């Protein structure tokens, strides 16, 4: 029995859903409302002491850390394999899967919060907002988040996030030029699943011009990703329709501001 505790728009959770659908294993979905602070409830913290999504529970055993969960699923359900058979390619896959977590997870919040999540959080009542802030154990993270909520894309953290995101897109483009197919070689792997939510995020925000402007290989890769049967259920069907619509509308309004940041930095 597999249960995934997740949230529709969490990039780390999305990568695990992609792996589950790629493997076509049945699983039970439990949504943790991270924008309402549900991840801080004691029963959830007992499962996942970092108070983050996702958590996979397999036959009552919790497995945490999205990159570890993906490898676990490939260990337990080896067919179809989502790690390259060539071991050097596999090492490349692991570096990509881990770099995405390390460098891009916080950055993704930096481009999303100013456009959308910020407006969701600002809808909370003063008591709910306080509870949301109080739930954060990491003071630096809380301070960053407050700046994003209060200043939007004009927050220094947001501008930094936009530029790091741009370098990430270039890195993806360069890697695809090297392999000619998928991120870690000739076959689709966990590395591709790990990177997918970051493109979906831009897609949902209506920032498609960001990669289409100058990154043809990445555009082609993303089209191939979207054509896979795992894409629709893992990335789209799970999102509440209103959330998707709000994200698209709000994002469209912000794209000129994001493009200005890129132009100011001389990378557009």
């Amino acid at each position, binding site marked *: 029995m597999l249960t995934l505790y997740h949230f529709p728009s969490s990039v780390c959770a999305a990568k695990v859903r992609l792996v589950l659908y790629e493997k076509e294993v049945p699983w039970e979905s439990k949504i943790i409302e991270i924008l309402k602070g549900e991840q801080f409830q004691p029963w959830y913290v007992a499962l996942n002491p970092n108070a983050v999504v996702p958590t996979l529970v397999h036959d009552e055993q919790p497995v945490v850390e999205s990159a570890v969960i993906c490898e676990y699923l490939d*260990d337990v359900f080896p067919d179809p394999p989502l790690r390259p058979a060539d071991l*050097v390619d596999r*090492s490349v896959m692991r*570096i990509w899967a881990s770099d995405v977590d390390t460098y891009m997870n916080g950055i993704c919040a930096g481009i999303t919060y100013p456009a959308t999540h910020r407006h969701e959080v600002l809808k909370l009542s003063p008591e709910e907002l306080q509870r949301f802030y109080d739930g954060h154990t990491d003071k630096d993270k809380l301070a960053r988040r407050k700046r994003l909520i209060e200043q939007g894309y004009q927050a220094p953290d947001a501008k930094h996030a936009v530029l790091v995101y741009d370098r990430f897109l270039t890195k993806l483009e360069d890697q695809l030029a090297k392999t000619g197919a998928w991120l870690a070689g000739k076959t689709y792997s966990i590395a591709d699943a790990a990177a997918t939510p970051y493109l979906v995020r831009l897609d949902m925000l209506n920032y498609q011009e960001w990669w289409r402007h100058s990154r043809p290989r990445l555009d082609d890769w993303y089209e191939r990703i979207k054509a896979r049967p795992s894409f629709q259920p893992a990335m789209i069907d799970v999102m509440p329709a209103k959330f998707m619509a709000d994200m698209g509308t709000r994002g469209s309004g912000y794209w000129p501001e994001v493009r200005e940041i890129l132009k100011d930095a001389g990378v557009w």
Partner: protein
Amino acid sequence: MLTLYHHPASPSSAKVRFVLQEKSVAWEGAIVDLYRGEQFSAAYLAINEAAVVPTLVHDGRPVRESLVICEYLEEAFPETPLAPADLAVRARMRVWCKDIETFMSVSLAGTIFPANDRHELAKLAPKQLDTYFEHHLNRRLAERRRAWMTEGYASPDARNSVLTYHKFLQKMEFQLGRSEWLVGNSFSLADIETAPYVGVLELLQFQNWWADRLPHVRAWYEKIKARPAFRSAVVDVVPDQLRHDIAKRGAEAWPAVEAIIATAEPFNGKSPWAMRAEAL
């Protein structure tokens, strides 16, 4: 044919050597002199664009990142398995290894640089030193290192590094009170990945960090030291002169480090770290 580009005193190099020795795989070593900036040479950047050690080159193909190299070796040389057969335990092992990267690896530089590396770099001519810093791809790390050169442990950043390192040692203590090895009851990559971070403290003569404070860590480290692979991969590989220099500098630095440790918050079963260990 296996070649490891490494440095004798680098814990991330030591982990890979430890795995190679545990598996009794034949390998050739190529030392990258980090104190002279050899990691920034064009030849090295061609196999490791991040300019860090170690890099393993197997039949001409480079493999990077110590943790990834260890998993690579585990799969390429499956005899003498170092990953638990139970897949859920293997997942816990991977979480532990990821935590080392997240917490220990990043706080290592700030913990040992003010004691040792800065004295090595101080031997460079001012112009060479400027070149060394200019070569850093990571500007922030370069700035931090400059601060450690001049301020030593008085730099707030070095202080935070020591406290993070200490917290991880406390987490080990907590975990080792519950299982024989760091993850479960058999020796695994989790122990291998962690051991060099304690080994480097011993090189610096910082044993008092755990000798009285952390009895489970002490007992675990004794078991680690009894392994012949650890001795050859982590201990014997350090040249005598370097060992002597590091020990001398470390002994001088220890009071400053101990003063920082004394300010650490107590670690109890309610801290998120302990809860995490508990859940595992």
